[in-house]
């Protein structure tokens, strides 16, 4: 019986893919909750895991809810870059949703301010 359990456990380990945790936001530029000046030309998001580009993205909004990002997010490995329009002073919200390479979905949002 014990060898049966050991075999089952070993089999499961053998068919397990490489371990990949959820993709969490490691750091962002502009930094989460920060005030920056001059206005950034892009938002850069670095995650803890590699991303599936086809199923990952981000959007940036101004205080009135209008989109200020331009084009599709550029994704390379675990880093996503989103180009921005010229930003006026104010508060902006970044919303992201990503799929890590092991199919775990995570999401989040944060704000940054552009100072005068």
């Amino acid at each position, binding site marked *: 019986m014990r060898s049966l359990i050991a075999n089952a456990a070993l089999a499961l380990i053998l068919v*397990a893919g490489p*371990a990949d945790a959820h993709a969490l*936001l490691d750091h962002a530029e502009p930094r*989460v909750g920060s005030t920056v000046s001059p206005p950034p030309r892009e938002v850069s998001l670095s995650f803890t895991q590699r991303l599936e580009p086809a199923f990952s*993205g981000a959007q940036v909004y101004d205080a009135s809810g209008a989109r200020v990002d331009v084009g599709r997010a550029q994704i390379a490995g675990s880093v996503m870059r989103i180009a921005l329009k010229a930003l006026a002073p104010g508060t902006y919200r970044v919303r992201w949703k990503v799929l890590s390479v092991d199919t775990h979905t995570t999401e989040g949002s944060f704000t940054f301010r552009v100072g005068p």
Partner: protein
Amino acid sequence: MPDRLRLLPAFAALALLLLPDQAFAHCFVGARFLPATLNTDDPCVADEMSLPTVSKFKTGDDPSAKELDLSFDVAKRITENFGISVSQTWSRISPPGMPSVHGWQNLETAFQYQALKDAGREFALLAGLVVEWGGSGSQSLGTDRFSTITPTLYFGKGFGDLPEAAGWLRAFAVTGQFGYSFPTRRTTMMIDPDTGDISFQNNPNFLVYSGSLQFSMPYLKSNVADLDLPDFVNRLIPIVEAQFQTPVANNFGTGIRTTGTVNPGLIWVGDYFQIGVEAIIPINRASGTGGGAMAQLHIYLDDIFPTTIGRPLFASSAGASKPFGN
């Protein structure tokens, strides 16, 4: 070739057949991650394992006995929204001036259904049925010979949906559970070993409730304000838990007193596991004497084995969706 090696390909094939085509997370609700907490079950079905939870404290008996518990818990999703868990606890009880007794507590299982996950409000609701199987534990511990059934509701709520002006308050979250436990046998026959007299003791119904207040440093860093703190600090979740049980029916002769503990502590969240440490502070004499402590190593099976045992046995065939529907 030894027999066990010959069986290996068969087990591997079986495991591959069980592979579903998609898997999701442990307790993520929108941007909020609710960790597994040591006393209050988190409000999500999951593929996780607590191996082990260790607790040491003094019981509420008179005189008080020292108790050491080692608990093992495995939770497995059957479908995306339905899961089961199995828990087993080994205990050693040392009454003052008497030899210690040790053995297994009754086996406990839980059947849980994910009723709601509202990402925007960071709110999760779980319905469960917890069964403690009477007679499955060691007689030396005096474990109940009857089973106990506890329908339970679990919830979790993050405060990330508060207005931006709330600032750091948005990193707080609460979880809780409310259950009503009733025994499968209303009375237990007691025989006095000296006189042979027979008496009957009621087996009460209990209201069982607990909760946690937690401050998520990971949430603060990713969603509120990145303070450029060390990575170790950014993975901490300070927490206060409290758990209570109150006899509410069939309790004639057994007391009406609420017992429980308050448990302040810390949880450190890694990529593949978490470690929790909490103090055990009894709320009254009937709940224990002095302080105790507990610690837990909790493993995320869905991250370690994302393509096998870390997925539901039967997953929906829906593929991953594009972000924001575009």
